[in-house]
């Protein structure tokens, strides 16, 4: 492609500046980002992770993929050559940068990048995408804002303070075990700019440019990230059963609900980890798990000690399609990174005999999220328990943004009965769900090739 300025013509899309020549000042990486990346993605399971722009089944040479991985945490500082026209000083507001730790999990974010890079900038330049801060490990951030190849280096901004730069896109697409995770990997802008200043100090010819880099404004950067998330998110716990782990939600100080496929056997011992308000691990045992034949994939765990300080969510009584919702779960990283928050809407409420029996959302849901809570984003009330996302068995494609939850209204009366009396009979009714409910949860359709639920 020829990127030299070309004669003006009838614009198809928006008007653009002609491309301007620039020089590379330096390449830089954020050491803390690299350290967290190595911890989270560089374990024995590293081969499960890919960050290539191409889908896992596409052919990408090993060298090319290795180059991409090496460069993943590297950024570049450029200086555009002056154009000789009026100085650009007056154009655009001054950039502000959010300090690391000042943005909480679940905070809405706006990503701005150019899909496919320099391809058709009049069409694709500065495409916007909304999401939330899903997770954080130091300056390594994850968002569920959907980004595309070519948006690497694009800015990610917060609404408060207005237009503050939170991060830059490091890898728009993440794949784990050949499944698209639906999260975008970011590097926090504050530490990156600090690294740029430190690097410039070693380069006398351009050291003065450090004074022009935007500085962090806002809350102190010493705030602990773990404590910064919506209060309702703290009800999510990690449930470990042998080598299997999944998510769960605290329904009482000593009672956790999860999925049967996470804690499959009654009387089995499980370890429940809570990340907030403090990191604790408490043993418990499964007091109830639905039978394999039950459409409801549910297990109830009784703990040996109270989950101190963990908020008990308020269950909703009614569902409204289109409600903003959040899924909190330990998908993707397990214990290594605390729970992830993903955002979306309640996309469908499936009813049988006017009773909700299944919820669908547009939140990104990954393996390990099973058993986690589905909350109303605005009220923090509990809507359901995540049970599965979707895989098309014909193509192998996983759809993290189509997922299924068990409405809390299905469980709440039985849980209350158990909590008050120790009587499990209400929960046992879940094994006797009517055939139409079984049909819904089997995703039975006339066509034989429909996607099947799994997680």
């Amino acid at each position, binding site marked *: 492609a020829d990127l030299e300025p070309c004669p003006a013509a009838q614009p198809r899309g928006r008007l653009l500046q002609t491309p301007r020549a620039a020089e590379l000042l330096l390449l830089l990486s954020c050491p803390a980002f690299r350290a967290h990346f190595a911890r989270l993605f560089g374990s024995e399971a590293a081969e499960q992770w890919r960050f290539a722009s191409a889908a896992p089944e596409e052919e990408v040479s090993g060298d090319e993929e290795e180059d991409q991985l090496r460069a993943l945490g590297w950024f570049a500082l450029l200086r555009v050559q002056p154009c000789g026209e009026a100085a650009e000083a007056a154009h655009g507001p001054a950039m502000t940068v959010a300090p690391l730790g000042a943005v909480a999990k679940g905070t809405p974010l706006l990503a701005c990048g150019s899909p496919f*890079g320099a391809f058709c900038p009049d069409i694709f330049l500065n495409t916007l995408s909304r999401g939330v801060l899903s997770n954080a490990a130091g300056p390594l951030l994850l968002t569920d804002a959907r980004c595309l190849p070519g948006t690497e280096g694009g800015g990610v*901004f917060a609404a408060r303070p207005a237009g503050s730069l939170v991060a830059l896109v490091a890898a728009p697409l993440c794949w784990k075990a050949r499944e698209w995770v639906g999260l975008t990997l970011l590097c926090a802008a504050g530490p990156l700019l600090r690294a740029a200043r430190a690097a410039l100090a070693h380069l006398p010819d351009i050291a003065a440019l450090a004074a022009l880099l935007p500085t962090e404004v806002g809350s102190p950067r010493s705030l602990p990230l773990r404590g910064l998330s919506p209060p309702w998110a703290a009800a999510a716990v990690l449930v470990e059963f042998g080598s299997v782990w999944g998510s769960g939600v605290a329904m009482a100080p000593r009672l956790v609900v999860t999925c049967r496929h996470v804690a499959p056997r009654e009387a089995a011992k499980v370890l429940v980890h809570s990340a907030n308000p403090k990191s604790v691990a408490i043993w418990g045992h499964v007091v109830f798990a639905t039978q394999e034949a039950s459409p409801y994939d549910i297990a109830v765990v009784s703990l040996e000690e109270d989950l101190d300080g963990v908020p008990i969510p308020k269950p909703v009584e009614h569902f409204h399609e289109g409600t903003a919702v959040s899924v909190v779960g330990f998908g993707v990283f397990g214990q290594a990174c605390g729970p992830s928050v993903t955002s979306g809407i309640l996309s469908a409420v499936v009813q049988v005999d006017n009773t909700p029996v299944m919820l669908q959302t547009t939140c990104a849901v990954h393996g390990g999220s099973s058993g986690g809570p589905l909350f109303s984003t605005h009220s923090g009330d509990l809507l359901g328990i995540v049970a599965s996302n979707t895989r098309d068995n014909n193509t192998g494609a996983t759809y993290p943004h189509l997922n299924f939850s068990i409405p809390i209204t299905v469980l709440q009366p039985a849980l209350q009965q158990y909590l008050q009396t120790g009587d499990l009979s209400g929960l046992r009714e879940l094994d006797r769900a009517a055939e139409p409910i079984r049909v819904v949860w089997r995703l039975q359709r006339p066509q034989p090739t429909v996607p099947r639920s799994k997680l």
Partner: protein
Amino acid sequence: MRRQWGPTMRVAEQAGCVVSASRAEQPEAGLWSCSGVILSRNPVLVLCHGGIFTPFLRGGSGTLTAAGATFLPGDSCGDDLRLHVQWGPTAASPAGRSEQGRPGLFTPSC
């Protein structure tokens, strides 16, 4: 969305840009590009992803993983590196239009 995000969208769109890298002597050999953020306007300083520079590193991509390397000066890339930055219209600047080459991307009917 506009009311809450209006100021942020304005900042994001004014700061957003696209960065292209090619070889001066062999532009046909390939074009690498990514997104970027304009950090400063006078002079114009841009922060973008480093991945597009990998093919131009004198020491190869291994330079990026050399022990302790947290930055590399600009001359770590070969002299034939040519960079261009493009951004959207700003109030007082003449606007043009670029006709880009077409990579293998098309828009199939859904």
